[in-house]
């Protein structure tokens, strides 16, 4: 670690680094869009939870003029990566529009890569055995694994992920987030523990319109990753949280499990608790653990999962990471700290501290779950 790194991570020369990750999410359930102002303010208030090695935002409802197209955000960390990526994208999609993303080079972020945005539609002639979504995921995996230095960090419709190495407020400045509006924002401040602080490793992690932000550490990463690889997901971002994004896509989109059950897969009740439940519930939870044992998320975590119309907060079953929630009118918030929430909404109608393993689910008023669709 060079001197500059040290100065960013530990400006006061403390003996110990007191950081953790910080999460904040805000959603308007009437679908009204709002700017980045409040969420960036809340993240800046939790500045000390991160250490400047990762910050990021996911915003839903930001590209209404292109809402029928997949919006790809791609970071290029090498010179020839763009040429290779363009070739892959052109072979699989009709590229409706592409541009270098608007960035503020004065922002205090480290070694920013070139970031590009594409609006694309899948080619009409595609294999019949693949759904459109699987076709898109396949393309994302190809870019991430075959180009060497290009990574698709956002691939959903009418939503976007923005992330990089810096404090969240600086990453927001870099991506000029003040120019965007969305009805759902999830935000992350990173304090990397076991894996490198690099642009692709910042949160949120995204596939299609699914995003995950995560505070904690998945000690089950190895087994989760092997299981997901069997389902075609390739982990390239060298960070544990990546498996969560793919696991959510697999369970919620492809297998259409309701969120309540997904919560029980990730944060299953302990065996001795299951033994004490009424027989039907015990059988359900036992079969979930048996079927999805490899997707049990072990270790401490607090996460916020989002996709269009819905955000879900979930903590590990023994609550080793903080999470509180609150609501005011049509707004619902999930945060690592109560103060950040009170900063943007001092008079909450409702405040609660969700229990470990119990999901906080917040949906648009007109949201239809997988089954209803």
């Amino acid at each position, binding site marked *: 670690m060079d001197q500059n790194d040290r100065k960013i991570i530990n400006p006061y020369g403390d003996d110990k680094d007191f950081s953790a990750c910080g999460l904040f999410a805000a959603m308007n359930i009437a679908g009204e869009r709002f700017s980045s102002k409040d969420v960036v303010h809340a993240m800046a208030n939790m500045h000390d939870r991160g250490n400047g090695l990762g910050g990021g935002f996911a915003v839903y409802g930001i590209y209404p003029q292109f809402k029928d197209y997949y919006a790809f955000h791609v970071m290029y960390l090498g010179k020839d990566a763009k040429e290779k990526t363009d070739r892959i994208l052109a072979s699989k999609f009709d590229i409706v529009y592409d541009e270098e993303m608007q960035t503020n080079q004065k922002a205090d972020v480290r070694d920013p890569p070139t970031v590009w945005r594409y609006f694309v539609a899948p080619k009409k002639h595609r294999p019949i055995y693949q759904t459109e979504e699987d076709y898109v995921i396949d393309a994302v995996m190809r870019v991430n694994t075959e180009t060497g230095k290009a990574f698709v960090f956002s691939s959903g419709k009418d939503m976007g992920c923005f992330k990089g190495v810096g404090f969240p407020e600086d990453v927001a400045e870099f991506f000029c987030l003040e120019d965007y509006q969305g009805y759902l924002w999830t935000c992350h401040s990173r304090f990397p523990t076991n894996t490198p602080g690099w642009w692709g490793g910042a949160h949120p992690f995204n596939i299609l319109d699914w995003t995950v932000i995560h505070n904690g550490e998945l000690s089950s990463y190895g087994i989760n990753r092997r299981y997901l690889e069997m389902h075609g997901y390739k982990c390239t971002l060298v960070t544990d949280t990546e498996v969560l994004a793919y696991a959510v896509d697999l369970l919620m989109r492809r297998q259409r499990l309701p969120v309540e059950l997904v919560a029980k897969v990730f944060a299953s009740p302990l065996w001795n608790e299951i033994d004490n439940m009424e027989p039907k519930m015990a059988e359900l939870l036992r079969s979930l653990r048996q079927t999805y044992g490899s997707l049990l998320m072990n270790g401490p975590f607090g996460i916020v999962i989002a996709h269009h119309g819905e955000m879900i907060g979930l903590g590990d079953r023994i609550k080793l990471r*903080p999470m509180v929630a609150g609501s005011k009118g049509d707004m619902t918030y999930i945060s690592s700290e109560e103060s950040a929430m009170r900063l943007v909404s001092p008079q909450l109608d409702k405040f609660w501290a969700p229990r470990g393993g119990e999901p906080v689910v917040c949906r648009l008023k007109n949201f239809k779950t997988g089954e209803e669709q």
Partner: protein
Amino acid sequence: MQVPSRINPVEIDEKYEACITREDKVVKIDAADIYYRDLNAILRAVIQNSGVEKIEIYNVCGQRYIGTDLHTNIQIHIYGTPGNDLAVFNNGPQIIVHGNAQDGSGNTMNEGQIVIEGHAGDVTGHSMRGGKIFVKDNVGYRAGIHMKQYEKKVPTIVIGDVAGDFLAEYMAGGIICILGLGLKEGEKCDARFVGTGMHGGVIYERGEFLCPVAGTKVEEVDKRDMAVITKLVEEYCSHFGGNPQAILNHPFKKILPVSTRPYANLFSH
């Protein structure tokens, strides 16, 4: 208690002078947008001024460690939501929070008092070794984790409502008094794993609403216990209102560890 003299006397940064006003014995601080390090530095500087008996801090929002390193019995009123590790290593001040507290309040505190007029987050009273914490409503997970006591140092937490899982985890000493005032008659607190690894100290509960783990035992309270409980409940009511007699007019139980070394045989076979 004497304020220890410092090798480097602390001075208040000029840019914060407008945020600080003094009226006789009371100092008022507007903490909006003051970084936690600077706020704590201001507190250290303010207590050096003679005659200050009370500090009021307004617009607090997430500043950490407020009240640490002061070593005097000054009274500090906090308006807003203080950040994590409120009064960490507290060694004297009485800190009154007119609102809610976050995680880790009273972490390793040694003396003094924290009074929270709302709820408190997880790990409240973490490794406490002295002093008292009063919480009007509920506390989060792991309140009183690893509290300890030695001779006259008996840390105490009084909780008005209920607690989250792992209350008194690895508790080695001290007193937790939990009143369950928000529960209906006969209702249980849904906290799991209460008293896991507990090997010292005592939990007093008003009724029998906790479900402690194996390794603990529930017993009737005796006269000496009631004398302690009565004092704590009276003090609770003096902070938050309410009628101590009405609260005390209910059978209390105590939860004790079965063994002082619950894990002695963990690795022996």
